[in-house]
């Protein structure tokens, strides 16, 4: 029964199902609720964002946390205490460069997958009362919503993600440096990108953030075709960003390509983990639960 429920809930994490949903809010809610529903039956049971206890109001507490029903019954001020409630400021950085618009063997393009992931994270963060911000960038920052925990802010983020459109070439390092300079308090930065950029510059930007005390989680979103390179027959491969063309016989270059891709990912993994940065490669054809779990894992370690 449990497994049946799990499989039923997990299907809402499947990109093929999510892609058919309407608004980004619906997608994010479906993902998160489905994920959390699965979590209750998972080994991660301890990660609950549910109501934990009441605590007597102290000056400085947010008045929105006052439980007015308790006050009506007992004439005392109590605030709701949630398990994961913190003053965390989360920034989701979504790469919207042209390469993110690539869709090879998946139902969703990388940018769609990244948007759903960003929305889900924002939804989850909002549920945890974290201040959530969104930055869309390609070679420059194209849109920015500052971190906020206000109820209407989530709607603004989801609306922005709903309207996201591919940009031009990517320069991941640049917004990272800009953000590092702008952040003034303890934050969590989630970078969603294919990271098909100069790895040295990207790592440098991420380390800059880390140096400023920011926790960083990096989701590298890759299309199945980028991971497996399943092409057959000679083809003229055209770079979607630089328009560079190259004719190659996939059968002959597959092995070297996969080696190069593994080397790139290995380099990111090695250097980022060395800097205390969580790094996870996501297949855009696979469910989002791994990404959410990774986030919660990183979030939990920050307590």
């Amino acid at each position: 029964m449990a497994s049946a429920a799990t499989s039923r809930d997990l299907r809402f994490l499947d990109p093929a199902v999510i892609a058919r949903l309407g608004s980004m809010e619906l997608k994010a809610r479906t993902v998160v609720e489905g994920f959390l529903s699965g979590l209750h039956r998972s080994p991660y049971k301890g990660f609950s964002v549910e109501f934990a206890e009441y605590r007597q109001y102290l000056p400085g507490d947010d008045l929105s946390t006052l439980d007015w029903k308790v006050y009506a019954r007992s004439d005392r001020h109590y605030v709701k205490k949630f398990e994961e409630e913190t003053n965390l400021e989360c920034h989701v950085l979504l790469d919207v460069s042209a390469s993110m618009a690539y869709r090879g063997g998946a139902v969703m393009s990388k940018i769609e997958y990244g948007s759903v992931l960003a929305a889900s994270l924002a939804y989850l963060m909002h549920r945890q009362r974290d201040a959530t911000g969104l930055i869309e960038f390609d070679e420059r920052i194209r849109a920015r919503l500052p971190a906020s925990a206000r109820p209407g802010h989530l709607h603004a983020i989801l609306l922005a993600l709903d309207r996201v459109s591919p940009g031009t070439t990517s320069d991941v390092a640049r917004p990272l440096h800009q953000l590092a300079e702008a952040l003034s308090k303890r934050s969590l930065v989630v970078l969603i990108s294919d990271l098909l950029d100069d790895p040295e510059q990207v790592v440098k930007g991420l380390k800059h953030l880390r140096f400023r005390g920011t926790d960083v989680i990096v989701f590298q979103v890759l299309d199945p075709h980028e991971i497996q390179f399943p092409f057959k027959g000679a083809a003229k491969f055209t770079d979607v960003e630089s328009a560079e063309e190259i004719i190659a016989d996939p059968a002959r270059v597959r092995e070297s390509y996969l080696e190069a891709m593994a080397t790139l990912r290995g380099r990111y993994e090695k250097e980022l983990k060395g800097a205390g940065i969580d790094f996870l490669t996501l297949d855009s054809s696979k469910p989002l639960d791994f990404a959410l779990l990774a986030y919660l894992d990183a979030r939990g370690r920050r307590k």
Partner: protein
Amino acid sequence: MSFLNPLYLAGAALIAIPIVLHLLRRDVAPPVPFTAVSLLKKTTVDRSRRHRLRDLLLLAARVCALLLLAASFARPYLAGAPPTGSTTVVAVDRSSSMSAPGRADRARTLAREAIDATSSGDRVALIAFDDRADVLAAPGPAADARAALGDIQPGPGATRYAAVFDKAVELLANEEHGRLILVSDLQRTGFDASGAMLPEGIGLQVKDAGAPISNLSVSNATLDPGRRVATATIRNAGAASRDVDVTAVVADRPVPIKRITVPAGDAVDVTFDAPPEARSVTFSIDDPAGYGADNARYSVFEARGLPRVLLVTGGPASNAGFYLSRALQADGGEGPDFDVRSVTGTAFSAMPANEVRDHSVVAILSTHGLDRRAGESLRSLLSSGGGLLVAAAQDVDASVLSTLLQWEPAVAPRDARRPRVLAATDLRHPVFKPFDAMAANFGQVMFHRAWEIAAGDGWRVAARFTDGTPALIERETVQVAEATPGRVLVFASDLDRRWNDFPLHPTFVPFTQEAVRYLGARPPAVTSYLVNDVPAGTPAVPGFARVAGRTVAVNVDPRESSVDRLTAVEFQKQVTRTASGAQPRAQRLARETESHQNYWRYGLMLLLATLVVEAFVGSR
């Protein structure tokens, strides 16, 4: 480099195919949008460079293969410098008629004049001819031909102009301005019935080395020891009556000379006494004014022993063998070719083996009365090279024959009564070869009854009925030492008009005679040859010679004794000009040059090597 068939070079345009494919192939790769092209590029640059090199090698190999193919079919050759000057072939008659007084000298003089008259740059060839033409000096300096002229002496051969024309055509095949100067006494008899042919491109100049003469010849010689007489025929080809002494040597002993008078244009027979044991005779006359070679003639007597054929029939009342014996004794104009005798089976069994062996062929038409002795006689006959003809009949028991002749496996035919027709399809078989197109006439014979024989080991089917069953089968006995192997022919139907109407058809006589000849009843040997048709290895000179262990006479062709001559103009008219030599000289020369060089073979070998390289590179 030139080409014999340059049109094939158009095939070289096919090289456009691999080139176009190569160019197109660069663009046939469909565009595929991708993101990590930088990763792809990094690995592909090196590889694509290698592949580009491979593609270029493949392209080069394919283009080379097509070029070599086209070039090979175009038949390339290296044309040398065209020869300058022209070639003159001087042909001098050396036939026996040139032995007339003064003719040979005059011919040599005329030939020398012709050689001297050639230009300094011309090539001169010298041919001596009678019934065949021999090149004494190949086309070259006139001095060579002049030096070879002294070798020409009149021989015993007969004049045949066709031989010299053929040789001249051969020598002048590559010449544009060749000519033939023929020096001869212009005997009319030198032209065959079909005349002589010469291509239009070859000039013909005729020089008459003859003069009217009176010639006496021994035109015929016979020896008949039975009648004790030897006869010579003396012919006078002159315009006046001549007296002449005829000398005869009979059995190596001279006999008294006889003097006779031969009227002009007539022939006279002279007879001499010959002893019964005489086997050769030589007649000669003295005719210093005429041709020398026809003043003697030789003859050899050999009893014309007819091959003996023994027919084994049924009892005394049987008429078996009637048609066969009549067919074998058919007179072809010079008497029958076979000595045919019929015996009953009982008599045959009682016949000693050596008497049976005196027969060339035994025909079994009945097995009645044959016993073990008959089997021994037949096997003895076969082992000595004799022949055995077996014809199916009511009275012939195949099992008896198989037992007597020890055939393993035994012949076990099935007697079948249904109409069928003989189909002589293998005209290479000696029995049917003389029929040629007439073999179709066998189809008119209706065989109502025949043996259906399953030809087993050792038997070969020589002819079949139209229903596929064997009609004539044969086998050879194992050859003993150098003896001729004996042959057995089995005809699947009878030869006595009981099972068919074969004896009533025109094909019956030749069929039976050819069958018997094939089985070993060979015609009498030749005792006389002309000098121009002696067997190989026999000297072509008049006189006596040994051929296959026998003495034969060799004589000159009596036609050569003729004094009838042509004028130079008449001679020219006898020569038929053909257009076959009208082929452009340059083309002829090119074809010959190419055939000697055979560069196309090297082209094809290179093509093969190129294809190997292409396959090797392509598989990388």
